[in-house]
């Protein structure tokens, strides 16, 4: 036993420090790898959370924008300013196709979608403020409210002396909210025009038919193509143009199906819509609504005709033209909505007749349809 013990001691003694030397580096490598993996895990979570938070914020902002636009379009003739202080550097995108308006912060979150409200806006808006304006669309009774979205960084240049020029200049500011101010100016010669400082995009509104002929004015050639657009009003139609390099590219024309009058919602829709696609899309939405509203008025008309009020005084005579119009106009509106723009001239005609009939009822002391 005595001879074995020293031998064993002698055998293991040199090994102990060796084992210790091997364990220490192994532990450090292990700790580094494990620590690195754990660190990566948390870094991954943080990065993912940050991305999803930005996405979520974008979606939330888009939803809030949707609520605001919905409220603004519900109330008639409203002028609202929305502060976008935190998003002044972001671009808001608006587009409408196949009857669906999509809008929101460009590249952030899911854009808000709207299938009902006719919304007209520039394709891209970069500003710390949004200006929302709504006007009622009558055909001949109120159908819906058109919502126009713009910003103080969009400059509207009016060319000509049309009655609409004075109307737009007057309406560009709100009497209730001093912050509501659309940047608008009238010029005689578009070639001599230069945009005001700080403008991000320019919209030329031409009533002469002469302004959008040659090249894009030199002062506007520094802008990106999407930032410069034009609309020309001639012979009851709106022709849309977009800057393409130094030239104007035509987007096509749309007939304005409207009964006219002061603050014509359709006319202003053509001013604020970026292009023909957005204008036609908004009009299609409005006419789809008109289809349903007309059916409601047809039912109301029937109830009115069957009521004792329709038999008072000379009212039976005054009402005599109404039954036919209550059939013709909803039918014409339906055709217009389904075949836009083909069947719409008939609908405009029947809307005019219905308006005249309603005025007769009003003047005759009978209960009017609307």
């Amino acid at each position: 036993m005595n001879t074995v013990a020293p031998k064993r001691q002698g055998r293991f003694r040199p090994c102990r420090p060796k084992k210790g030397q091997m364990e220490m580096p192994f532990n450090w490598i292990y700790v580094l790898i494990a620590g690195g993996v754990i660190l990566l895990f948390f870094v991954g979570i943080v990065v993912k959370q940050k991305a999803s938070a930005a996405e979520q914020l974008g979606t939330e902002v888009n939803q809030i924008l949707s609520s605001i636009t919905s409220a603004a379009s519900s109330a008639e003739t409203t002028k609202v300013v929305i502060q976008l202080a935190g998003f002044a550097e972001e671009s808001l995108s608006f587009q409408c196709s196949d009857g669906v308006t999509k809008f929101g912060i460009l590249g952030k979150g899911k854009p808000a979608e709207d299938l009902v409200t006719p919304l007209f806006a520039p394709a891209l808006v970069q500003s710390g403020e949004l200006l929302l304006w709504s006007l009622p669309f009558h055909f001949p009774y109120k159908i819906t409210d058109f919502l126009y979205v713009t910003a103080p960084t969009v400059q509207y240049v009016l060319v000509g002396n049309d009655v609409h020029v004075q109307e737009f200049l007057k309406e560009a500011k709100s009497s209730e909210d001093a912050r509501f101010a659309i940047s608008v100016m009238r010029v005689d010669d578009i070639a001599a025009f230069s945009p005001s400082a700080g403008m991000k995009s320019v919209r030329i509104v031409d009533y002469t038919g002469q302004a959008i002929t040659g090249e894009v004015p030199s002062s506007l050639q520094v802008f990106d193509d999407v930032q410069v657009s034009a609309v020309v009003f001639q012979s009851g139609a709106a022709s849309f143009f977009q800057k393409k390099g130094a030239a104007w590219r035509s987007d096509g024309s749309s007939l304005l199906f409207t009964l006219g009058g002061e603050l014509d919602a359709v006319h202003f829709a053509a001013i604020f819509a970026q292009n023909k696609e957005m204008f036609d899309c908004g009009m299609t939405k409005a006419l789809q609504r008109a289809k349903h509203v007309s059916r409601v008025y047809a039912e109301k008309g029937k109830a009115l005709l069957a009521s004792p009020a329709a038999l008072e005084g000379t009212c039976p005579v005054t009402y005599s033209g109404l039954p036919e119009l209550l059939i013709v106009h909803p039918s014409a509106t339906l055709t217009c909505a389904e075949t836009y723009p083909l069947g719409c001239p008939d609908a405009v005609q029947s809307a005019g007749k219905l308006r005249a009939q309603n005025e007769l009822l009003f003047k005759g002391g009978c209960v009017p349809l609307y």
Partner: protein
Amino acid sequence: MTETIAVMFIFFVLLFFGMIFYYRYVDASIEGKMDENAQRRAIEIATRFIFLPEVQCSGSKTYCIDLLKLEAFQKVIADDQHVDDYYYNLFAFAKITVQEVYPNTQQSWVVYDKPKQKFTSQKSTYFSVALHDPRTQEYRFGYVKMEVYS
């Protein structure tokens, strides 16, 4: 080795509790947000209905409902599924009831009724309105009850 396992065990136990706490917090904040959204939607839909040209009094009088148009609208929605689908885009899953309060307390109109099959919450909003009958030129008093499902 035993020490390392013990450290790892405690680490994972802490991580586990941390994750449970985090998910409970996220769950509660999502529920709160959903509740807030439902409330906002109820007010938004009620506003839309009050200003709806299909039922609003002539001359765009606010907070006034034309009873002839209301009955006509009720009929048009009930008669045509396409029309009902169209108004789903405006009101979604909701029930809109117009209740007369004076003079006839029994009169009510269910204008739109599209309940959600498995709803998690139901928010109600009330708006008082004038009810105008163009035939008699009488004004009555009532309210709009808006029930929104989510």
